[in-house]
């Protein structure tokens, strides 16, 4: 972990410093980071079953606009949504970088979220998260909080809430 500032002050006792830092940072949230329209989003790893390349998506006529269709994940039919449309963005063509993140809502329900590309897994200290102060309520209802961490802004997605209203 790297946090500028505190490290410079106690540079000579680095081991102690690491422990202090752990204490200071407290528990962290492990997240999968993905990108949508140049922004970085995160979903807790514990919610994610797997990340898939985009194969054939079977469209389901008559379904909501957000639903791209269904895919076959080892014998289970899983709904795929276009995360861009869910977040009120313009849809984008699927390309080589596009991925489907399979999210587990509970024991029985899984859903696939199409994203622009998936980056990495990161541990983000819980303390770094803050509630969103903006009041654009329609868009922000998927957002659990944001974190300013390592020179970037990470938007933590609240998957339970997104799909809570869509049964």
């Amino acid at each position, binding site marked *: 972990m790297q946090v500028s500032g505190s490290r410079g002050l106690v540079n000579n006792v680095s081991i102690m410093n690491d422990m202090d830092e752990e204490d200071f940072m407290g528990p962290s949230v492990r997240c999968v980071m993905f990108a949508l329209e140049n922004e970085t989003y995160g979903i807790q790893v514990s919610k994610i079953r797997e990340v898939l390349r985009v194969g*054939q998506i*079977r*469209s*389901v*006529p*008559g*379904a*909501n606009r*957000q*639903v791209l269709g*269904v*895919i*076959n994940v080892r*014998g*289970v*039919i*899983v*709904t795929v*949504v276009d995360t861009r449309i869910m977040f009120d963005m313009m849809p984008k063509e699927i390309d080589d970088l596009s991925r489907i993140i399979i999210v587990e*809502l509970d024991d029985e*329900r*899984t*859903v696939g979220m199409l994203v622009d590309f998936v980056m990495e897994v990161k541990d983000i200290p819980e303390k770094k998260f803050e509630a969103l102060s903006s009041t654009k309520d329609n868009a922000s209802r998927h957002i659990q909080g944001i974190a300013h961490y390592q020179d970037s802004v990470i938007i933590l997605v609240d998957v339970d809430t997104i*799909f809570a209203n*869509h*049964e």
Partner: protein
Amino acid sequence: MDEEILSDFLVEASELVDQLNEQLVELEQSPTDADLLNAVFRGFHTVKGGAGFLGITPLVEVCHRAENVFDKIRNGDVSYDAVAADVILRAFDVISDSIEALNAGERDLPENDPQLLAELDQLTKGTAAEPVLEQPVPQAAEPVKDVSLQLPEGVDPDGEITDDEFEALLNQRDFLLSDGDQSNASSQSADVSLVLPEGVDPDGDITDDEFEALLNQRDQLQQSPAAQAASSTVELKLPEGVDPDGEITDDEFEALLNQRDLMLHEDDAFEVPPVKSAQPASAPAAPAARATQAAAPKSNSASAPKPPAKSNPESTVRVDTRRLDEIMNLVGELVLVRNRLLTLRGSSGSSEEISNAVGNLDHVTTDLQASVMKTRMQPVKKVFGRFPRVVRDLARKLGKKIDLELKGEETDLDKNLVEALADPLVHLVRNSVDHGVEMPQDRIAAGKPETGQVILAAEQEGDHILLSITDDGKGMDPDVLRRKAVEKGLMDEVAANQLDDKSAFELILSAGFSTAEQISDISGRGVGMDVVKNMITKLNGSIDIHSVLGQGTQISIRVPLTLAILPTLMVAFGEDSYAIPLTSVQEIFDYDASKTNKIDGQRMVRLRDKSIPLFFLDEWLSPGSSKESYDDDKVVIVSIGNQRAGLVVDQVNGQEEVVIKPLGVMLKKLSGYAGATITGNGNIALILDLPGVIQRFQY
């Protein structure tokens, strides 16, 4: 803590209740069948044992009395006539309802109807009113109440129970169960004591061996004088055993237990704990408990709050361990094949090796599929079991004489189907009894035997099950049906007269069509034939009616063996394929615009002098690709309930058996789809739900 024991008990008790239901009616036909009597006796006894252990007092009271009655009956002291049967069946209903209530999560059972208990006691007394009868029933009932008070003390609400405590409880139960036997013995001997009032020696000089032999003898219904004498000895001796003083020796007590074990031979688990130390432990508690007797059942529920049972016994299935072994074996094979394929992948093996491995894989998966399916299969007996009782009660109520014959009870079908078929079948059987079979005098007048016959049969027919309900009653008059259809405004006279007899019979499946001249409380209760029809359609089944006026009616139901696999017709729009349940498909022909008319904004196709509405599925399934002409398309005629419709599709790709998979999040409530499936080439096909499709186009 006892939720788990309770749910085990409920599973077992439900099975016993099912068995008893059948056995009791059977018993009425052959009231002296010793094996049957013993089986019934054991049934009540086992339920009582479990209920006693769990402190379900109302259940114990009824079971105990029923058991007493049957003890009398199997000793030949009381006969199982229609009057006795009515009382016993009522008692049975109470037991059955209690089990159901417990299954539903109810924990406080209502007090028993004292009238019923009194009638049961009256039955036990039989015809002879003996002065010597030492109130065997209250005696037996009290210790049971003691338990209901004691258990909550042992069973801490916190759920932490030590092994010792638990053993003590088990012992207690053993003690009680044997007490049940004792009171049987005592009530039985009460009769005997009329014959031998003074021949009973209270000292009871009898060895344990002799005693055990006699008990066995009693069990086997050997009514020798010696056995009678012995049982009177038992009477005097056993109540002492229950006494708080506990003068019974360990050996004697064990003999009693052995006897009990003979009856309860299936539940080995409770045999283990030794009884010796239990006697002093449980006995002294009795007087104390008696003081607060009245409050006992209530304190039970208050001190041990039980969470409602979450596990529904119907969500579990009992599987023969041999079947499980078979599956395990096949899974082992599957792993071996996988390993072989993995090795082949690494070493890029010859195509022959690969095709061998794939062939092997094919075999293993086919076998595995069949084995897993078998675990879901249950004999249709599970549904049929309730019918003897249904028919008996109805026939008695209506004053008819009816023989019910069950055929093919051992036919296996999918567990879900077994449950789903129960209601429609009950309705059809009730119909046969109520409307089909005539009153005895009418039958004689018509030159038929006085006793009517209803046959309920099941047989496997390829991948379907054929269920049929046949009666030799008055049959249906197609002309009456035609007239009714006109009267009810379902069709005009011309159309009605055009119906052939078979179509006329099928009129009874229409909504709002009741043929009963007057609606009786038996067949007119809510579920109409149209509901039956809908339920069967939902199971992808079909109903066929055959009737000859004056000779009887046969209603046949065809349902697939399993709900998981659905035979379908695959149709397609471009790349996208859809599956239509094959049972609904009637015929397929080429679309021909010249044979269609636009009537009131709805395009209809003419088919053998009928106009059938057409639905152009591409309007829904591939919007935007509006076609100029449908000339190369096909029309699939489907029937939904009594309605027919023509679905216009791009291509028809033939039949395929598919495994139904539910659609996921955000699609569950989408109308028009029954699910999805994965086709042979790995693509996903959507399964159409026809009622939903029609709805989409009509509104």
